[in-house]
């Protein structure tokens, strides 16, 4: 589904990703872990098409297409979803209008007719229940005045509305209390299908108790330095990242 080869990228002239290669197959959940500043969020930004990141080399193929050539909105319509670490507040744009526009853009892309107002509201209601999001939030401006937890739940709600093929969740667990974490994780699990995949970026092992990954990668200094099964996450939780640092430094 997604094939990243030797990806090099930077921000403001500073190299951050120094040759990343990663294969994600349909149905897989990959966790990317790593200390602060290792490049996790930059990788997510590259995949979603943020233009503040400069691509220096390598390639990303998604469903057979060159992802790096696609506009962010086209990536979304082709099934990529980025759950933001820091969701953006958009004053004056209501959640309903925002989601209606997005859903209908996706439908247009698939050659489906626009949803009627009542069908749309029905869909909203259904998905809202799934992520246990407060009904009132939907009538407000996008993320405006939402608490940290509400913003994260709102990301999962949007994901539920758009039903992506590849979801990239960038530190969705940060700032969540245990109840919100459970709700978010449940949302992700319920959206799981055999043909869709997720990349879960996280700092802590905690989230992976709920979303069980097939593969765990450790990103350090712009490179994937370790790849293993879910047991790697437990090892990291126990020992921290220092042993990885030492291992990498010894190799150099």
């Amino acid at each position: 589904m997604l094939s990243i080869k030797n990806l090099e990228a930077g921000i403001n002239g500073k190299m951050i990703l120094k040759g990343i290669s990663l294969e994600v197959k349909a149905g897989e959940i990959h966790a990317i872990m790593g200390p602060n500043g290792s490049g996790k969020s930059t990788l997510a930004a590259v995949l979603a098409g943020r233009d503040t990141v400069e691509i220096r080399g390598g390639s990303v193929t998604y469903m057979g297409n060159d992802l790096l050539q696609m506009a962010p909105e086209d990536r979304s319509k082709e099934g990529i979803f980025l759950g933001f670490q820091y969701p953006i507040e958009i004053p004056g744009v209501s959640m309903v209008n925002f989601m209606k526009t997005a859903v209908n853009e996706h439908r247009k892309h698939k050659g489906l007719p626009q949803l009627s107002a009542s069908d749309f509201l029905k869909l909203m209601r259904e998905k809202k229940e799934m992520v246990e999001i407060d009904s009132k939030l939907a009538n407000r401006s996008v993320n405006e005045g939402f608490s940290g937890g509400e913003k994260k739940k709102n990301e999962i709600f949007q994901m539920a509305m758009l039903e992506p093929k590849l979801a990239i969740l960038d530190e969705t667990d940060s700032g969540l209390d245990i109840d919100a974490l459970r709700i978010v994780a449940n949302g992700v699990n319920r959206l799981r299908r055999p043909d869709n995949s997720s990349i879960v970026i996280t700092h802590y092992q905690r989230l992976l108790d709920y979303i069980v990954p097939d593969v765990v990668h450790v990103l350090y200094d712009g490179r994937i330095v370790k790849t293993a099964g879910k047991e790697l996450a437990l090892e990291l939780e126990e020992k921290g990242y220092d042993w990885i640092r030492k291992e990498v430094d010894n190799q150099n």
Partner: protein
Amino acid sequence: MNGKSEVSEFFSRLYAENIGRIAEGSTPFINSFRKEAIEKFNLLGVPTKKMESYRYTNLESFFRHDYQSYFIPDVSHFRKAEDFRCDVTDLDTHGIVLMNGFYPTINGKLRELQGGIIIGSLNEAARKYPELIEKHYGRYAGNDSDGLIHLNTAMVSDGVFIYVPRGAAPAKPVQIVNLVDSDQDTFNQHRNLIIVEENARCAVIICDHTLSPQRFLTNAVSEVYAGENSSFDLIRVQNEHNNACKITHTFIHQERNSNVTSSIITLHGGLVRNNTYHRLNGERADCSSYGLFLADKWQHVDNFVSVDHASPNCTSNQLFKGVLDDVSTGAFNGRIYVAPDAQGTIAYQKNNNILLTDEARMDTKPQLEIYADDVKCSHGATVGQLDNNALFYMQSRGIDKRQALLMLMFGFAHEVIQNLKVEALRERIDGLVMQRLRGELSQCASCMVKCV
């Protein structure tokens, strides 16, 4: 000879040569203001950029122009005004059309509605209800330093009169449509007087339109009296062409416990200067002053707002926003004055602007004069670009860049529109603003008026 006196002298001469004709149609009471007013105008002249409150707005190109018409329009123009129908179908109003500043002479000049409410020509009201006019006319137009107010008082002939007696409320809003239409370049001055007595309620919508492409200059004064416990909403929608200059002076005088909102939506216009003066004259009066403008090409829109907290425990809120494209320019000047004994004042002011190009320019200036100690006051101004993070966020959900930009601009504008008190108009303005942002002509669909 400097420019100021040359232009000003022209108007002084125009007054002197035509005073007979000007005074002919008006009552002695209205005429009694003219002499002093023209003397004050002679001293002050047309405002120039040297005046602090007109620093960002150059009126010269519109005032230094030979208009072919300065006075009463043709009868045929009145017919056109009679035919005018607003196409906002959900908007059920008591309509009044002013043609080039005059109330059409056909069809009776004053209407009496249920509850003793009177709407119609100011001139006619001055004849029929002199006691009302004498009690209120000229009492609230108080800024002595702006020569244009005096010019209006000196030369004005007609305008709209609205009277809502104690406890009354018209079932529908009153809509004043100001049409400017002529095959000649025209200078217009009109004067509105709105009296909302104690415990009365009223909403007034003013639509400014230009019908023909000639050069127009309008200098309009409105006086509003809002009595004790009254409620008054004023919505002004401006949609004039690039060759038109609109200057409005609106004075709203509020008594105890009265509640007033004023909203100015400037969709289009060559040069627009709106002066809105709120005087909170009685305790616990509350006013909100809103403004939104969308400017492009070389348009210039300047909003000057003054809120005068003359009494204790009053509240006021100013929210003005602008979107500027191309090489357009704008200005906001927001004054809050709190008198020494106006304790318990709460006054807010916010001015936010978006520049869509590097060439567009916005000047914003808060002016707070606070002489009481128990006061809660805040002000904030921003001039910036659209939020790139918000843009990317929307794109990442599948919304293309153009649409996302539109939604952001619309969201920005909507913060003002959502405050409009007439719901049918709110939807209409939403639609017009969306059209305007898309770069389409934002004229009312089936309207005979081709504003832009």
